């Protein structure tokens, strides 16, 4: 029997800002690259994002944030993922995130932080390269 795997991605907006233009463009780029994109909509709590990742059995989580609350919300998300044993999911972030915060975010397991103006094919390449076949 032929197996037909697809890369499944969640594009999520944690926190309270309501600027989802970037998130939607990213979601669209993944769709056009042949991936299955689950879009959660605005104002998601860490619990909602992690639980969605679990139920949808995704390979990747993309977090978009512009509110400045990333140093509070991202560690919470990564902690919950550890609790639920979802560490094998690739996590990256985008939005407005100051350079000085990036090392700390990478340390808690966020693989890459993309700034404004990142070409979408760079994102697609990054995801393709870093999603190994998961069990």
């Amino acid at each position, binding site marked *: 029997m032929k197996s037909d795997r697809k890369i499944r991605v969640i594009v999520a907006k944690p926190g309270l800002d309501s600027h989802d233009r970037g998130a939607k463009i990213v979601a669209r780029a993944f769709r056009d690259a042949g991936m*299955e994109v689950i879009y959660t909509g605005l104002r998601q709590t860490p619990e*909602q994002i992690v639980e969605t990742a679990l139920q949808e*059995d995704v390979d990747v989580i993309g977090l978009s944030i512009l509110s400045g609350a990333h140093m509070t919300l991202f560690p919470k998300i990564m902690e919950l993922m550890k609790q639920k*044993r979802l560490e094998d999911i690739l996590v990256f972030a985008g939005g407005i995130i100051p350079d000085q915060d990036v090392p700390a975010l990478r340390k808690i397991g966020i693989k890459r932080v993309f700034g404004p103006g990142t070409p979408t094919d760079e994102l697609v390449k990054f995801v393709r390269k870093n999603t190994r076949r998961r069990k």
Partner: protein
Amino acid sequence: MSQIKRLVGNVVKSDRRSIAKTITLVENNQPEAQEIISKLYPHTGKAHIIGVTGPTGSGKSTLIGKLVKELRKRKRTVGVVAVDPTSPFTGGAFLGDRIRMQELSTDEGVFIRSMATRNNPGGLAKATRDAIMVLDASGKDVIIVETVGAGQSEVEIIKVAQTVVVVLAPGLGDDIQAIKAGMMEIGDIFVVNKADRENVDKAVSEIWAMLNMNPDKEKWTPPVIKATAIKDEGTTDLIDKIDEHRKYLKTEVVGMKYKERIETELIEAIKLKAAQSVISDLKERGEFDEFIGKIMEKKIDPYSAADALLTKRLKKYKAS
């Protein structure tokens, strides 16, 4: 214990991670899929499977969100399978049904899974039935299946759901649309959503008029419910009607319907297996490519080619 046995055991215990992993396995048609389904099958049959269909933008996802909330108030556990279309050009999909249900995602009694059609026609994905089975085996009381935004021929849902809810909205078309075949024939319950808009009564009466043309009075007459999902109006009515329909399904008149569904399931399975085994055999022998060549050169048409190939392969096969 084998990995599959453990996975199946955990699904039956309603372990969320295992449910999610198992759905992925069946969706991707991985080698373990069939064994898993056969082990889960004895645990299925308890859930009430509700299909929700209707045109794009009629409010299916929003209505399901409210429906699940109300079902949870009534202490029932719920599984949701929400299907959205795969792009025929890129193979990708944007699955956005969850947006209207996100507040439910952290409720332990609810499991929501988005699914892309992967170009399966009819408004559902090929693995939708299997995903329903997994959720059923996990002990959910109710399973709601949302089809893609459907037009007139996306009626696959009747093959998997026990109760079909058709969601419409005012202003989507005149009474001529209501007489057309397809969507209007498959509903056990009709919902006219967005009832705070103009012309809602006209829409309701058109559907009513259509349904009352049905001469078979013995049968269930589909109710038409007005709802405004976004304001949470009409949902309790809808659940009451869904429950009524479930009671009706238990009467003997409709025992047949269940048998019909099992029949379809078997037919689908035979088709799939037969095609798979015949085609892979023909490919191994090189006959497949030989005929492809002949068809391309217009020496034979695909139907005659299929007859010729099958006559060789299946002893009892008679070309019709």
